[in-house]
């Protein structure tokens, strides 16, 4: 089992510097792959539509996920509700490459997350701060992403979450060793995880940014703030020219530090997704599952 967890963390390492795109059909998956996605997230409705239509959002139909698996050669991820280990068992049975235990779907358990150590396939989980990230890792997550606020096209929450996680990492790094015990108590995680961050100055797993990415500049901003890669949900297939925008975001993630390349790829992308401002949101998905 320990070896399996290592292999799963290793897969996340291979995704670094890449863009993981939400797709809701095999056609969209092929567009994403051709545009340079390093993985796709298969789901029936993208977050913006989940937000618009309301109701209970659940794991997608396994048949759709299998069709998407057949359509592309890159890794395929899919979402389960927070705490819904039966949905996760189903995704493992169809050999999904990565499970996202996601606040985008309606939570199935308001207290417990999935015991991810019981699974052979890797999990990615969302986090708003370092404590959440380490709690998810303690439960067996092989990859972390910021929660951001999915389906809004507004980057402010992802920036807030990423900045906070990076700041808390720097704070842990600068602590005296005898202060780490109290830090572990405050974060509600084992001392070993806190000690790892103190020594290494980073999470023990790969950390992506997610939630509200709509432009190449958004992606570059998050990369410069320390993200190791980016998830793009509604931002691509809710825009005027998905293929072109997807390609541009991929290039922006690779050359996030070169403003002249960013300028070039940002040109003439057509309409971005409309988006919702923070103050206008009725449902804060990032508050689900802490």
């Amino acid at each position, binding site marked *: 089992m320990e070896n399996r967890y290592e292999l799963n963390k290793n897969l996340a390492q291979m995704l670094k510097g*890449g863009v993981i795109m939400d797709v809701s059909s095999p056609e969209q998956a092929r567009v994403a792959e051709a545009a340079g996605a390093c993985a796709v997230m298969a789901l029936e409705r993208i977050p913006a539509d989940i937000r618009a239509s309301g109701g209970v959002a659940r794991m997608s139909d396994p048949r759709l996920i299998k069709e998407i698996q057949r359509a592309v050669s890159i890794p395929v991820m899919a979402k389960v509700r927070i705490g819904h280990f039966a949905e996760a068992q189903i995704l493992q049975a169809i050999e999904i490459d990565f499970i996202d235990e996601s606040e985008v779907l309606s939570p199935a358990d308001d207290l417990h997350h999935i015991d991810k150590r019981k699974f052979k396939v890797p999990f990615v989980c969302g986090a708003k701060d370092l404590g959440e990230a380490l709690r998810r890792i303690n439960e067996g997550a092989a990859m972390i992403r910021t929660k951001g606020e999915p389906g809004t096209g507004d980057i402010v929450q992802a920036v807030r979450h990423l900045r906070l996680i990076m700041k808390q990492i720097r704070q842990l790094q600068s602590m005296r060793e005898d202060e780490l015990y109290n830090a572990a108590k405050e974060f509600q995680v084992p001392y070993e995880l806190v000690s790892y961050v103190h020594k290494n100055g980073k999470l023990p797993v790969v950390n992506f940014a997610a939630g509200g990415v709509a432009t190449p500049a958004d992606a570059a901003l998050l990369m410069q703030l320390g993200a190791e890669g980016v998830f793009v949900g509604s931002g691509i297939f809710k825009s005027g020219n998905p293929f072109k925008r997807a390609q541009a975001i991929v290039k922006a993630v690779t050359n996030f530090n070169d403003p002249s390349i960013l300028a070039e790829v940002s040109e003439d992308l057509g309409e971005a997704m409309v988006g919702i401002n923070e103050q206008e949101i009725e449902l804060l998905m990032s508050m689900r599952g802490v």
Partner: protein
Amino acid sequence: MKQIGVLALQGAFAEHIQVVEQLGHRALELRQRRDLNNSLDGIIIPGGESTVIGKLLKELDMLDYLRHIIRDGLPVMGTCAGMILLAKEISYDSSRYLSLMDIRVRRNAYGRQLGSFSVDSIFRGIGKITMTFIRAPYIEEVNEGAGVEILATVNDKIVAARQKNMLATAFHPELNCLDVHKYFLNI
């Protein structure tokens, strides 16, 4: 001290940089065409998604020049996706990238993530090392007449090979071993 360029378009390039530096050499990230103008003693093409790295190589106008300097003898090591990019033939796939090594590779040859594994096995010239395969390819065929030497096999599948200045592994030495990089730095 050697200066090694590590292709940093996507994937596990940071891990390679760490190993190169740990062995006392200098590593340079290669993210765009002008980065290839640096004086380099070798190039590493990391693991990641070959479709992504291959596409970016083309679009960032790096592919032809990279092929040219490798053909001229610059040592190169390709791991996993890097091996796919070096291969002349890719089974069940019409894509071709650098197309320099006389090997036929098969992508995702062990299936999805559940098929990923780690094993201790012999690497010719090094001995027993840990080999980690992540949604890995393997080599279905090498052209020994063209000077391709098989360096490692696992369960009868070829997982490492060398052709003159080019070294390819299906597994990821950058994750848990220094020896393959040492071998490469001596090419």
